[in-house]
């Protein structure tokens, strides 16, 4: 078995993902305020409920699944593209969620013309955020600051010494899903 190691009770395939959240470990850099922001243009293959994407290279051609180390049949119809805010807004949103500051988050949303969120929705964001932080620290180590997510190079997918996917694309892995970040006004699809 190369990519799929089983199916869960709902019938969903379980992939045998590489270690380190799919990054080349030495390439990982923390996304940080004032140092490394989200890319202006992003591209994701698959559901918007995932939390990883690539940037779009300057020549405008998206990375292939092979470069992204995504073990799926190449399907241009599965790609989403969009833009990211290039100011400090993303960091402000994450800070509010990380500090469980619902009022602060709603002020940010209000200032940006977006609807307030409920405390129930805030709980979901906090739960998702905390789960990511725990998982990311376990996978890449606590020496890397994972608070705002990670940037790096997609690792090759190697099985039993054989390179199945080359990797090499850029990869951004964030604490919240693409869909959540769209709803919070950080990303546009």
């Amino acid at each position: 078995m190369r990519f799929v190691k089983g199916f869960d009770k709902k019938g969903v395939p379980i992939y045998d993902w590489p270690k380190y959240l799919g990054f080349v470990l030495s390439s990982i850099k923390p996304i940080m305020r004032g140092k490394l922001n989200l890319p202006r243009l992003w591209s994701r293959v698959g559901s918007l409920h995932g939390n990883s994407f690539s940037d779009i290279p300057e020549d405008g051609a998206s990375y292939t699944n092979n470069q992204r180390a995504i073990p799926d049949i190449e399907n241009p119809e599965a790609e989403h593209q969009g833009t990211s805010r290039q100011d400090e807004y993303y960091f402000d949103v994450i800070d509010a969620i990380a500090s469980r500051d619902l009022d602060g988050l709603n002020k940010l949303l209000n200032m940006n013309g977006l609807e307030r969120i409920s405390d129930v929705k805030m709980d979901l964001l906090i739960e998702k955020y905390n789960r990511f932080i725990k998982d990311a620290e376990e996978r890449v180590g606590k020496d890397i600051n994972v608070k705002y997510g990670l940037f790096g190079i997609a690792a090759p997918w190697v099985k039993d010494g054989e390179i199945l996917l080359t990797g090499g694309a850029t990869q951004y892995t964030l604490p919240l899903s693409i869909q959540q970040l769209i709803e919070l006004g950080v990303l546009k699809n």
Partner: protein
Amino acid sequence: MSALINIENRIRDQSGNINHPGIGIDAVHDTYMSYLRGEMSLDTAWSMVEIIKTVINTQALTGGEIKQLTQLAAEIVGDEELAQAYVDEEYLLTLKPMDKIDSERGVGDNEIAKHINKMPTTPKEYYASALEVGKRSDLTVEQKVRLLQAMYYALGEGNTERMCVARQM
């Protein structure tokens, strides 16, 4: 075909009744001739195999005759392992033909897969059916993935919006 004729003759002889219906050999004659002329599709070939399976299921056959018919089925579908699995009432999904689905992506190969699971016509149908495939306990992980690939390719280009399916084993 000669195997079928011989079997029908034996059953008729043993019955002592010249008007015994035998195993309905006339019904498959035309199909078989089409097969010999290379005129029939894989789907029709499968109908032949189903007829052979029906004959075997009469339980009127000797072990040698079942073996003969299994070989005939293998000749028709071009895959001995697949024919044996079918005759044994195992599922038709075997790695060998499913490999073809992945590597060749031919319509004919999906014709094989559709005997194991209905092929979807829309992404919505695909997702509903894919979860059922994922839950099946009679298939291996590899077989499930092959089947999902066949279902995906059955949708065709322009009909796979937002769909992600594992690329290979």
